[in-house]
């Protein structure tokens, strides 16, 4: 197991419990998707997993070592975090932004050197956005910005990538580009991913295992096919859902169609 959460509980404030008894694990070279309705606490779950918020009880483990016991910089050399694409106060160029991924490897007074620059450039190259190198992050499309943030996370040289709704606000093609990138990082570079998503179809198509976070703060987890079912989606999201298998020349796909509010 490359990453595990055991009996995690969390609540904002003293009385409310947002996440209850969360346990799941991420196998090496696999992709885990997290589904759940708005407000169920998906982002909270990601933050707790990563130690950005402290579990009230329970802990997360990287390769068996509790996250709370790992030094901050060491932890973030192993995990690459890809936030939702938002612009920062100052627009940096794509290469400057990607270089920031080297932060965990450099001390307070150190600056990135030629080796760091080469790593950053190779990350742009790996996901096919070298041509954006000198463009300002404020002057590229949302899809391109999301790719730049993935490149930045890769520059950390992580073994796990954590992505917070990476395909939200993107059009069809850009969604596919992001999904294909996540898949090829697993297949070609042995980087496992945890993906927060609003799309059950994406969870089915790219992930090895899926978690559904329900409004009461508990989860259902297991392999993708067994978790993303009409019954589970209806209970978690409160909608009537139909799953439909589609066969095309390139393979089999499952279509998830919300029909009506339950």
């Amino acid at each position: 197991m490359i990453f595990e959460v055991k009996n995690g509980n969390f609540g904002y404030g003293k009385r409310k419990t947002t996440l209850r008894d969360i346990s799941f694990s991420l196998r090496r070279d696999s992709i885990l998707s997290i589904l759940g309705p708005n407000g169920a606490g998906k982002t909270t779950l990601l933050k707790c997993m990563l130690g950005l918020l402290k579990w009230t009880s329970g802990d997360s483990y990287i390769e068996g070592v509790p996250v709370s016991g790992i030094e901050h910089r060491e932890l973030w050399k192993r995990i690459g975090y890809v936030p939702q694409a938002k612009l920062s106060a100052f627009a940096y160029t794509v290469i400057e932004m990607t270089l920031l991924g080297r932060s965990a490897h450099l001390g307070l007074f150190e600056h990135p050197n030629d080796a760091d620059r080469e790593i950053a450039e190779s990350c742009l190259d790996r996901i096919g956005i070298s041509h954006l190198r000198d463009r300002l992050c404020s002057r590229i499309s949302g899809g391109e910005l999301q790719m730049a943030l993935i490149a930045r996370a890769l520059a950390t040289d992580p073994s796990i990538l954590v992505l917070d709704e990476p395909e939200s606000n993107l059009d069809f093609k850009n969604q596919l580009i992001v999904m294909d990138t996540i898949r090829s990082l697993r297949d070609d570079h042995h980087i496992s991913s945890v993906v927060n998503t609003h799309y059950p179809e994406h969870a089915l198509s790219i992930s090895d295992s899926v978690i559904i976070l329900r409004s009461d703060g508990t989860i259902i987890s297991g392999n993708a096919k067994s978790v993303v079912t009409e019954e589970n989606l209806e209970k978690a999201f409160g909608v009537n859902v139909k799953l439909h298998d589609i066969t095309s020349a390139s393979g089999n796909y499952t279509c998830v169609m919300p029909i009506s509010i339950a």
Partner: protein
Amino acid sequence: MKRETRQKKYVILAIALVAAPILLGIAAIGVGRYSIGVREILECLLPPLFPGADVDEVTSRVIFDIRLPRVLLAIIAGAGLAVAGAAFQGIFANPLATPDTLGVASGASFGAAFAILLGFGMMYIQLMAVVWGVIAVIVAVALISGSGGRGSTMMLILAGMVVGALFSALLSIIKYVADPQDVLPSITYWLMGSLTDTTFSRLAAGAPMIIGGTLVIYLVRWRLNVMSLHEDEAKALGVNVKRVRVLVIAACTMITAAVIAMCGQIGWIGLLIPHIARMICGNDNRRVIPACIGLGATFLLATDTVARSVSSAEIPVSILTSIIGAPIFIILLRKTGGVKS
């Protein structure tokens, strides 16, 4: 633009930004009621290069006792304020932040006015300014510490505004009770800001704080980039956000408190210069901070030289920095649209 041509452009820019304050400084030494030629200035400043040169006593006194310390202070203070502004804009992820965002200027002004009211001498006025400037920032930081992590940069800015307002009110009380015949005018004049009467001993008291603070920020300038992202994002890149923030705030406070203690309130530089620097060389603080040092030094030196030489009575430099700074800023914004493309 090609990478090579851009590199070349930055090299030329770097040389220009180092040369500008030096050349302007030499010129500024010659300007004034008692004007001095460039050759005489060089003979006086660099005697080994001019063997056999004979500089007369008065010229040498004017240079060393009056003009040189003032020129040096303008260079150091201008650079310091510009760097402090850029650093605050970075750590608060806010292009409108200034060196005074945490209330250091209000605190320092209160301290100085209080010292003037009590009839203290120049040295104690400066000391009180520094001490109260630092106290103001500590109060602002203490107000929000322990109030939780979310949105804490916005909380810090608000705390700074509150502390600034508090010390402005205290300053008003002092002005209100001050003797309008002689104490009040000297408080008012002090607050307007001036580099008059700079001597090497005054410079020696304040300059190390400004230079030290500037050096710290120069060294951590790449970290300012990551600090300007959202807080969780910066943490997730492995940065100890709290430690960097405390270090930068401490360095900026040292710079600003020392500048205000020596020259009074000089506005605009901390906002204007970082923005000009970004328009010239992009938002990467690895280039913005060095550019701020060169531009800030040049700007304050130029305005101060104008302030002391344009009329027989000296114009307070803070008035000039605003009068010159505001239009320049607007012209640049209109020309470039605010960001370098």
